[in-house]
């Protein structure tokens, strides 16, 4: 118990520090929010143009969800990249903390930030499209799926964080590669049924596919979460494997960096 509470307290270090960073850069955060809103809006307008309210809602969900994923990943990758860049990573790694504590602290902040960010976009879009009919929506299902999927995304985020750990200049950018692959196979803007069969195999191992399925079922059809077991258990399994896998992989990368002297920047 003492160990657990100690770990929780320590991981708060990362949450607090990232909050300070957000606060210091609040002007940029605002600009980033404008960018995200504009992006989600543009996609949704495709649905509005088609005059199909169902398509509109479906695209809107895809755009907002995609934004959430991008924000979470970029926070995870960027905090590691900035630490590498500034050289503080050496100090963080010297501290008497478990790597899992560090990763969980950073990713927890990314999730909270992503949720706030996404909520703002959602509100703006709902105001922008008064024709949206959300009377049947089941928001509980949507929220539950986003939270459930977040476990898997945290795991993937940890694996993605290896890139900026080892490749300080371009590593953070390379996480975009991972993101765009998820975008391609997870049915963010279209149904995965139009993909070639080999790609559909990838769709089924992407947690994003199940999250989007669940969120759409909840918001469009109003399906209660209890009826979506088929989407829930893959997310549970993936979350339970991807987080330990992420911690393990990051640990491997750290050992590699320490063997080859890759953590060093100056001096």
């Amino acid at each position, binding site marked *: 118990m*003492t*160990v657990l509470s*100690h770990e929780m*307290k*320590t991981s*708060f*270090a*990362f949450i*607090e*520090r990232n909050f*300070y*960073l957000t606060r*210091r*850069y609040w002007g940029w955060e605002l600009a980033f929010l404008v960018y995200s809103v504009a992006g989600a809006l543009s996609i949704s307008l495709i649905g509005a143009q088609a005059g199909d309210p169902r398509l509109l809602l479906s695209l809107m969900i895809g755009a907002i969800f995609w934004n959430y994923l991008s924000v979470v990943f970029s926070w995870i990758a960027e905090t590691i990249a*900035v630490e590498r860049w*500034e*050289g*503080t990573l*050496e*100090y*963080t*790694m*010297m*501290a*008497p*903390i*478990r790597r899992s504590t560090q990763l969980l602290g950073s990713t927890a902040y990314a999730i909270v930030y992503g949720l706030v960010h996404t909520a703002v976009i959602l509100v703006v879009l709902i105001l922008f499209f008064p024709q949206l009919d959300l009377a049947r929506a089941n928001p509980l299902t949507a929220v539950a799926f986003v939270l459930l999927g977040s476990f898997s995304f945290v795991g993937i985020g940890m694996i993605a964080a290896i890139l900026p750990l080892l490749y300080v200049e371009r590593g953070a950018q390379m996480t975009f590669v991972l993101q765009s692959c998820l975008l391609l196979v997870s049915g963010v803007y279209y149904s995965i049924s139009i993909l070639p069969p080999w790609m559909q195999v990838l769709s089924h191992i992407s947690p994003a596919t199940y999250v989007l399925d669940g969120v759409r079922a909840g918001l469009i059809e109003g399906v209660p979460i209890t009826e979506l077991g088929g989407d829930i258990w893959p997310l549970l399994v993936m979350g339970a494997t991807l987080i330990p896998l992420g911690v393990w992989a990051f640990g491997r990368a750290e*050992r590699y960096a*320490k*063997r*080859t*002297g890759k*953590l*060093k*920047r*100056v*001096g």
Partner: protein
Amino acid sequence: MTATLSPQLNDTTAIGRVAALVVDHAVKRFNVADKRRPVMAIDDVSMRLERGEIYGILGSNGSGKSTLIRLICGLLTLDAGRVEIFGHDLVREELTVKRLINRVSVDAAFFKKLSPLENLSFAARLYGLEAGPARSATLEILARLGISARRADRPIEQMSRGMQQKVAIARALLTSPSLLLLDEPTTGLDPRSKLDVQAFIEELRVEHGATIVLTTHDLAEADRLCDRISILNDGRKVVESTPIGLKLLVAERYDQPATLEAAFMTYTGRSLDDDHEETEETDEPN
């Protein structure tokens, strides 16, 4: 599990018995390019520091000082050899060891947009300190190093290099390390700040019984602070003695003036046999 979080307990029981730091036949190579022989950054180095000692490491650029410090704080893994801190093995008892050490490097690595207080609050939390007391301790240490509370609230990027370096020193002191690794801590400081920091280092030893490893290119500083000094040359420890011992050694054995500078030149100089070999190698026509 709680025992690893309060390692001080183990130390006091073994007081006076265990060495503060044991480096035992440490080896570290770096692969710099395929098909090239790896660089021997640390080549069979051993040392033993007693509690409360200030131990200086001298050597020319690229002799392996920073690499040795990184090996001791676990930022690099050893290729061979062993490091023990207050009797705890660096690899097997990682968290215990980490709680006992801290390091100041030549560059002040911070989140430059954040203030000293914000940066140090992060450091304090990592070491399990309570936020309130950590804040007052931070302000106290910063004030002691000549940085006012007003300054402590503004982004680090607005500070001069020397001031940033002082904040870096404060970060290390905040966690009350039993073993403090200082990698050129006073490089780039003005003469007064240098004296401030040197006085502070002495105070740390006297009042807190900290053991300190210090690398520096300032020989007067090494002379003033260090109980013992070793000189590294191409990753090898070529000599180890007290400052006086070193001076006498070069005077007696090499007929040089009895100064640390003469000792440094002699032991890192091109005139040593090993260097001849190396010169021959690189001069080889192909």
